[in-house]
């Protein structure tokens, strides 16, 4: 395992969304890969700029929905056919049309739980501590400022040269991020 770099990375602060998107694109073109962009609202172009295109979340949600629905049907089938078959008005034990509402509800429940928990898990949340919070100005990232962080683990990263590169993007400020 490689020794831990002395700092987490370098953080550049920008005034508006356009500047951040452009900076992210040029960092990606220069060859930086271990980086992240932070903004106070979702910006579609940013994820593209970072080279992040697809998330597995929709597939997971589909699986969650199918499992929820199967659970609903399996539960009703087991109880009405296997565990306690009860003849109600001559209807079949597996009277599936009457089972549909609960199958549907549990499918929605399964999918919704996976959507939320899956999103949090893929994002690595909850994560109470993260090095970028060490920068005092970063509190503005949830208000009206835009940040780009180039991380020290990137092979291209060099404390001075990367700082010069970030300065060439005309940010308000470039800060070193402590671990």
């Amino acid at each position, binding site marked *: 395992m490689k020794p831990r770099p002395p700092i987490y990375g370098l953080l550049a602060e920008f005034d508006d969304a356009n500047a951040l998107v452009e900076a992210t694109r040029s960092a990606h073109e220069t060859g930086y890969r271990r980086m*992240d962009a932070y*903004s106070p*609202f979702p*910006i579609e172009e940013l994820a593209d700029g970072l080279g*992040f295109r697809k998330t597995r979340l929709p597939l997971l*949600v589909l699986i969650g929905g199918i499992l929820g629905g199967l659970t609903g049907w399996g539960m009703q089938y087991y109880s009405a056919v296997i*565990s306690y078959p009860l003849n109600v008005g001559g*209807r079949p034990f597996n009277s599936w049309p009457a089972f549909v509402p609960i199958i549907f509800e549990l499918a929605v429940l399964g999918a919704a739980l996976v959507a939320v928990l899956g999103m949090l898990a893929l994002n690595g949340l909850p994560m*109470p501590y993260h090095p970028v919070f060490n920068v005092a100005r970063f509190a503005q990232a*949830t208000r009206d400022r835009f940040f780009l962080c180039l991380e020290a683990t990137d092979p291209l990263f060099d404390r001075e040269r990367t700082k010069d590169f970030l300065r060439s993007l005309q940010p308000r400020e470039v800060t070193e991020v402590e671990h």
Partner: protein
Amino acid sequence: MADQSSPTMPTDTKDAGAIISPGHTFGTVTDKISAIVQTRRTPRGWWIGFAVTFALVILLHFAIAYLIFTGVGIWGINVPVAWGFAIVNFVWWIGIGHAGTLISAILLLLHQKWRTSINRFAEAMTLFAVACAGIFPLIHMGRPWYFFWLLPYPNTMDMWPQWRSPLVWDVFAVSTYFTVSLLFWYIGLIPDLATLRDRSTRFTGRVIYGILAMGWRGSARHWHRYETAYLLLAGLATPLVVSVHTVVSFDFAVAIVPGWHSTIFPPYFVAGALFAGFAMVLTLAIPIRAVYRLQDFITKRHLENMAKILLATGLIVTYGYVMEAFMSWYSGNGFEQYLTINRMFGDYAPWYWLLIACNCLAPQLLWIKSLRQNIMVLFLVAFAVNIGMWAERFVIVVTSLSRDYLVSSWANYYPTFWDWATYVGTIGLFLWLLFLFIRFLPMISIFEMRTLLPESKVKEEGP
């Protein structure tokens, strides 16, 4: 400024102009909404409202404690009317909740950007209304401490719920609805909780909002998955909300009681739910907007759009009433015909005409543009609809049950003090939770308001 903006053209620029007043920046939007929670003095009206509604919550506690101690005999219910206020209130409350989901999910899928400033607050309303609704079937059970018998679990009695009964479907529909509404609401809150965390000057605020925000830091990758999850949840909540009130209407439609056994019930109930819910959103939004001076964010355009939805759903509900009356005549069934005559001219006739006046006639005022834009008129119409929809559920539940097939078992239902105390108590609980929400959480989605500003759009030059 907002008051003069023309809401007629649905183009993007005019749209943005009308749904948020000009002159705002990311910073001012953030400051204005978070100030309500963090820096502005709590208005005196808040304290008064909080105290009054808290007293009603205490009344609710008394009513429920006395009920559990004594039994459902403290209410006016008996055979044949075994479904009194409890079921009326259950259906009324759950219907009110539906507008929140409509605003947050369906209008999101339809790209209706004006929903942004009212969705958070409408979702909170959904949650609290469903919580109030959930109380009623439980305390109506007679032995509420056996509520868990509703759930399927392996037990020593070797018994399962009856899967073919709409009442069991209801358990699953309502609990799923509550869970999904809670998730949707909480997910929407996470980025704003991070904003409050970063703006808190006190230690407790930083810790509590910090825990709730789960370390959200606005990373582009996180936002991408977040948006995906939010859109998927909206897509899931849309059919869910339709299913919930459909299942509620099955509680009636599957029974063979005259006036209930009808195929129009599911769409008629869903439309009625949206109608009642939008009326409640307007009833709450109009005073809150004035008290917290949020006219920049909840503009006249919002109120007018909601007025139009109120009018449209009101017409659907009116069609439902007309069809009910027509079908009872056309069916040639004596019991159905008698039921309609009894609704209109029997012992409960004042309730029927109250619902016609409130639900069918009052919204017709909204055809006229000047009345639709008059906030006082709009508030009064919305208030009338709240009453009218409650009267509708009362008429559906009570008139049908009190005049069943056998003349020998006819009997009227009269609510007692405890019926009213429980009902008023849940109104108190609903408003009390809403007061707490307004005080401690951002009632307008801050990050979504930022996206309404023109500066949030990135100029596309191609990578």
